[in-house]
């Protein structure tokens, strides 16, 4: 027994004094880089298509997002459109955009972008309908949300 005791005494304890510093550093990194998810998806998560000629969406505060995808219930066919926390009809898209515009300053309205996050299996008809509605209310900047990649074959 005495042998073991001797050995234990010789081991120096690892100093944990700098542990909080390290953890704080990580903490600040995540605090700064984090963006909170603001909407819960009511539709199935859109499987975005792949594209390589993408542009980054600037000024996130000026982006209004429209989700297009299948319903979570497999028995319901057709594309569903979701904005904020509800599923809406195509003809309600303008009122959503107008309400988004009302929240922003007047001089910022012309920089507002509509980001369409649609599933790659969605019908183009739905997308074109949304585009038509956006044209009606003069919200002309549109971004088709995609993931960056070169594998275009996976799109269809």
């Amino acid at each position: 027994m005495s042998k073991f005791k001797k050995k234990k005494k010789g081991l120096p304890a690892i100093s944990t004094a700098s542990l909080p510093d390290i953890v704080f550093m990580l903490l600040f990194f995540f605090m700064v880089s984090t963006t909170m998810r603001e909407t819960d998806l009511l539709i199935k998560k859109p499987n975005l298509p792949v594209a390589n000629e993408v542009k980054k969406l600037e000024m996130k505060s000026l982006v209004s997002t429209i989700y297009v995808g299948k319903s979570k219930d497999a028995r319901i066919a057709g594309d569903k459109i979701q904005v904020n926390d509800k599923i809406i009809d195509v003809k309600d898209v303008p009122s959503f955009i107008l309400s988004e515009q009302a929240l922003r300053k007047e001089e910022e309205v012309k920089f507002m972008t509509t980001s369409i996050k649609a599933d790659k299996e969605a019908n183009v008809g739905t997308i074109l309908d949304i585009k038509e509605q956006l044209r009606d209310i003069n919200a002309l900047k549109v971004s088709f949300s995609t993931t960056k990649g070169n594998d275009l074959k996976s799109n269809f």
Partner: protein
Amino acid sequence: MARRENSEINAGSMADIAFLLLIFFLVTTTMDVDSGISRKLPEKSQDQNQQDVIVKEKNVFDIVVNRNNQILVENDQYVTVNEIKKLAMDFIDNGGGLSTAKDDAPAAPCDYCKGARSPLSSDHPSKAVISLQSDRGTTYGMYISIQNEIEAAYTELRNRLGLEKYKRSYDDLLKDYKDNPSESLNEKIEFLKNSYPQIISEPEPIK
């Protein structure tokens, strides 16, 4: 009364608190950057009885996609997605005729085009229209792929002209402009944009 010495605050649990916060942020964080293909929709004209713009058939590059995701180009060629870029580039860059005469500039042939200069294809990049007609049943993935290829065709042409004129590609110029915006850079970018303007027309979908 013996004054007790100020004992130090025990900071041992600080790490625990920080860990707790760290784990919270780790779980809630999403680091996806929103990116996508940006498009500017055409304005709706208020004028009811406006005249249709007449565009010569040879200045229009027709792409039609049906509900089975099959692509027809110029009404006679059945192609796959990756062929569109090349065909679109040949069409835009053809330069077979004169540009439209404007107030400040008379009609002139395209002096930077490297195309075949065929009289049967587009006259000038500023006149070349790409028309993408899709079916309502086309899948969105296919639609985006074609949009992507058209975008790629324009970018490549602009890159080429940029390298020739400024020894810097269009993509690089955009990056430079983002790092330090200056008037001269903006001028170059605008020049490249106007040399190969994106004119994309999307007619009503096939029902």
